[in-house]
C-alpha cells in the first residue's frame, strides 16, 4: 500500500512513532478499507486531523505493541483487524489532538476529564490539598509546559488507545504520586535527623544460619507461576484483601483464596525440597520451617525477599545473603494471615 509507505516516510514522533523498514513489512496485509472505516467511525475530522496523520497514529500504536502479539510474531489480517477495533479510537484521537495543541480539543478534554482528574488525584493522595497540587502539576505537564531539547513534551503522546483515556490519566497520576512518595519518604526534617541518626544498640542476629534458608525460599518462590507469585505478594506483603485482589485480576474471591492456599502449599513443599537438596535431612528441614507452613511468613522477611528477587527490575538494588538474617525477625513482621479468615472478614 503506497500511502502506508508515505506514512512511514513522515513519522510524527521520530523517537517513538517511526516505522522501521522491517516493520513496514508487517503492515502490508492491512486493508485500506479498514482504515477508512475507522476514520469514519471515530469522528476524527472534528479535531482537524488529516487522514494521513490518523493512519500514522494507528500504525504507530499497532507496531509498538505488535498488534498485541509476542515480539517477532507476524500478525494475520484478522488479528490486525481485531487489534485496531479494540483500540479506543475517539480517546486516542482526542489525546493526539491535545498533544498537538488543538485548542478545541483541550476545551473538550477539560470539559470531559477536568473534574474527574482532580477527584482522582484527591483519591490517590488521600488529601485534598495534596491531590489538587498533584492534579495541577499534572495539568501543566499534560499541556506541554515541560520541554526537552527545545521541544515541547506532552505525556499524552504516549497514549496508544489501549484502555480508556481516563484510566490512563488515573494510572499516570498514581505513578506520579508513588514516584514522588518513594523519593520523598526518606526525607526528614533536620530537627529529627540527630535522633534518627543516633546509633542504637545493634541487634545480634545469626547471620550464617539462615543463608541456606533464604536461598531456598527465593528458589521456591521463583518456581511458582507469575500469577501465584503476584497473589502471594499482594496478599501477604501488601496486605490487600481478597476482594481487592479479585477485582484486580478479574476473578472471584473464592478463586483467589483457593489459589492462595494452593500456592502456599506448593511453596512449602518446594522449600522442603530445596532445603533437603542443600544438605539438610527432612526432619531438620521441617524443624527449620516448623510444622505450620505459615511460619515461613513469620520467620522470614518475604517482603524484602520478593522486592529484591528480580534483579532486572531493580538493577540498582540487589539482595545479598547477609541482608536476609538482618530482617529475619523484623519488628513489623507479617502477621500470620489466613486467606480463609480474610475472606470471611472481607
Amino acid at each position, binding site marked *: 500500500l503506497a500511502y502506508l509507505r508515505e506514512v512511514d516516510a513522515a513519522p510524527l514522533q521520530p523517537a517513538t512513532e517511526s516505522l522501521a523498514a522491517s516493520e513496514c513489512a508487517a503492515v502490508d496485509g492491512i486493508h485500506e478499507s479498514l482504515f477508512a472505516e475507522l476514520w469514519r467511525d471515530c469522528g476524527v475530522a472534528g479535531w482537524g486531523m488529516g487522514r494521513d496523520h490518523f493512519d500514522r497514529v494507528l500504525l504507530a500504536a499497532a507496531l509498538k505493541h505488535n498488534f498485541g502479539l509476542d515480539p517477532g510474531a507476524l500478525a494475520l489480517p484478522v488479528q490486525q483487524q481485531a487489534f485496531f477495533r479494540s483500540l479506543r479510537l475517539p480517546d486516542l484521537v482526542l489525546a493526539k489532538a491535545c498533544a498537538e495543541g488543538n485548542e478545541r480539543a483541550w476545551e473538550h478534554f477539560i470539559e470531559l476529564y477536568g473534574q474527574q482528574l482532580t477527584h482522582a488525584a484527591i483519591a490517590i493522595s488521600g488529601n485534598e490539598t495534596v491531590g489538587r497540587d498533584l492534579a495541577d502539576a499534572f495539568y501543566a505537564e499534560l499541556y506541554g509546559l515541560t520541554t526537552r531539547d527545545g521541544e515541547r513534551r506532552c505525556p499524552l503522546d504516549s497514549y496508544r488507545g489501549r484502555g480508556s483515556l481516563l484510566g490512563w490519566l*488515573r494510572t499516570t497520576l498514581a*505513578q506520579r504520586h508513588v514516584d514522588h512518595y518513594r523519593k520523598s519518604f526518606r526525607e526528614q526534617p533536620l530537627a529529627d535527623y540527630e535522633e534518627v541518626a543516633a546509633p542504637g544498640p545493634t541487634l545480634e542476629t545469626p547471620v550464617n544460619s539462615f543463608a541456606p534458608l533464604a536461598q531456598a525460599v527465593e528458589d521456591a518462590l521463583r518456581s511458582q507461576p507469575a500469577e501465584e507469585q503476584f497473589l502471594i505478594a*499482594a496478599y501477604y506483603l501488601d496486605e490487600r484483601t481478597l476482594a481487592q485482589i479479585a477485582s484486580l485480576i478479574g476473578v472471584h474471591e473464592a478463586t483467589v483464596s483457593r489459589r492462595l492456599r494452593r500456592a502456599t502449599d506448593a511453596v512449602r513443599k518446594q522449600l522442603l525440597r530445596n532445603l533437603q537438596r542443600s544438605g539438610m535431612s527432612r526432619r531438620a528441614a521441617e524443624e527449620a520451617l516448623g510444622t505450620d507452613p505459615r511460619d515461613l511468613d513469620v520467620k522470614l522477611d518475604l517482603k524484602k525477599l520478593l522486592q529484591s528477587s528480580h534483579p532486572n527490575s531493580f538493577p540498582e538494588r540487589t539482595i545479598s545473603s547477609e541482608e536476609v538474617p538482618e530482617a529475619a525477625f523484623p519488628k513489623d513482621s507479617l502477621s500470620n494471615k489466613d486467606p480463609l479468615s480474610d475472606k470471611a472478614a472481607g
Partner: protein
Amino acid sequence: MNQITQSDIHPDTESLNAFVEQALPAAEREHILAHMATCSRCRQVVYLAQQAGVGPLEPAIATAPQAPPPRRPWLASWRVAWIPAAALAGLVGFAVLHHAWRAPEQEQVARNVPSQPAPVAAPTQPEPAKSDKASAPATRDKAPAPKDQEAKQKPQSPPVAAPSPLTASQQNSLGPLGTGSGRGGSSYAGLAPTARLDAPQKPSSLGGPMAANQFQQQNANANQQQSPRQQLQSAGIIATGANRKEEAADKKETKIQTADAVAANAPVTTQVQIAQLAKNTDELATSEALPTLRAKSAKSNKATILPNGTAALSIAAAEGRTIAVDPSGNVFLIESPAKQWIPISPQWTGRAILVRARPVQLRSGIVSAPSAPLFELINDNIQTWVSFDGKTWLPQTMPPK
C-alpha cells in the same frame, strides 16, 4: 516522564492501565503479572489507579445537584424472602389448579343428574306459556334441567298470544285431532308429553313396566306442583269463563283429549288400561269415521244449556242417551224420546268433572261386549265411575287379566 527508563524497568502506564481494565492479551498480561509479583511500586500504582477509579464518584456526587438516590428495585429487599414466597406461590398455584381440575368433575355430575328424566320432558319444548306452568315445574322438581337444554327450550317457547307451534308442526302426526283450535289445541299440547307423544312413538312399551314407571313419575311430578283442579284447568279439561263456548264447540275433541289427560294423571293401578285406552283413542282419532263424528258432536254440543242455566262442561252421548256435567259437578241425563234433562243423583265421590262415552271398540273389544258400560265419569280426584244407562254409576275396576 522518562519513557525510556520506564519502559526498561517498569511497564509503561498504558500497559498498567490496560491491565487494570482487563484489556491486555494473555501473553502480555502474564508478563505484567510476573513483573508485578516482584515490583511493589507497580503494584502500588495499580492499586491506587483502581482505587481512584472507584473513588472519584463520591466527590462527583457531592458536587452534583441533588440527584435522587438510585432506587433499588423493590424486589431487592426480598432476597431472603424469595424462597418461602416462591414456595407459598407454588402451593397456592397448586391449590388453584387442583380446585379448577376438580370443579369440572362436580359440574359434570350436576349435569348428568337431570339428564335421566330428559327423555320424558324433551317433547315439551313447543309449549305455550300457560302449559309451561304445568309441565315445566314437573320437570324441574326432581332435578333441574341442564342449562343447555333450557337454552334450547327457551327460544322455542312461543309467547302467550302466539299460536302454538305444536299445531303446525305436530298436527300432521296427530291426525285430524290436532286440527282443533283455541282451547282444545292448547290443552292437548299441555298434556301431550306423556300420553300423546310417548304412546304413539313407543307403542310396544305400552303396558310394560317402563311405561308404568314413566306415567307414575309424570303423575308424581305433576301432583306435587298443582292441585287436580289446577291441573285440569291448565290442561284444558275444566273450561274457564271466556273459553267455555269454545270448549263446548270442541267437545268431541276434548273427549278424546281427556283420555290422554286421564292417562297422564290416572292412578298407577289403571295405567295399563288407560294406556290401552289412549292407544285406542289414537287409533280412533286416526280413523276415517272420526271427522264425521266430530262434526256431529260439534253441531250438537254447540249451545247446550242445562236446566240449572249453566253451560255444560262435559257432554257424552251414546245409544240415544246424553249425559252432561255442569261446572259445579252436577250430572244430567237426557234420553232421546224425552228430550228433557234429568238430574242424576251423585253416586260418586268428589265432584264430577268429566263424562264421556266409551268407544265402541273399547266396549266390544277389551271389556266384555254384552255388559260393557256406555259411559264413564271422572271426578276431581281422577277416579272413574262407569254406567250402563247413565243413571246408575259404579266405580270402575281394573279389567281382569
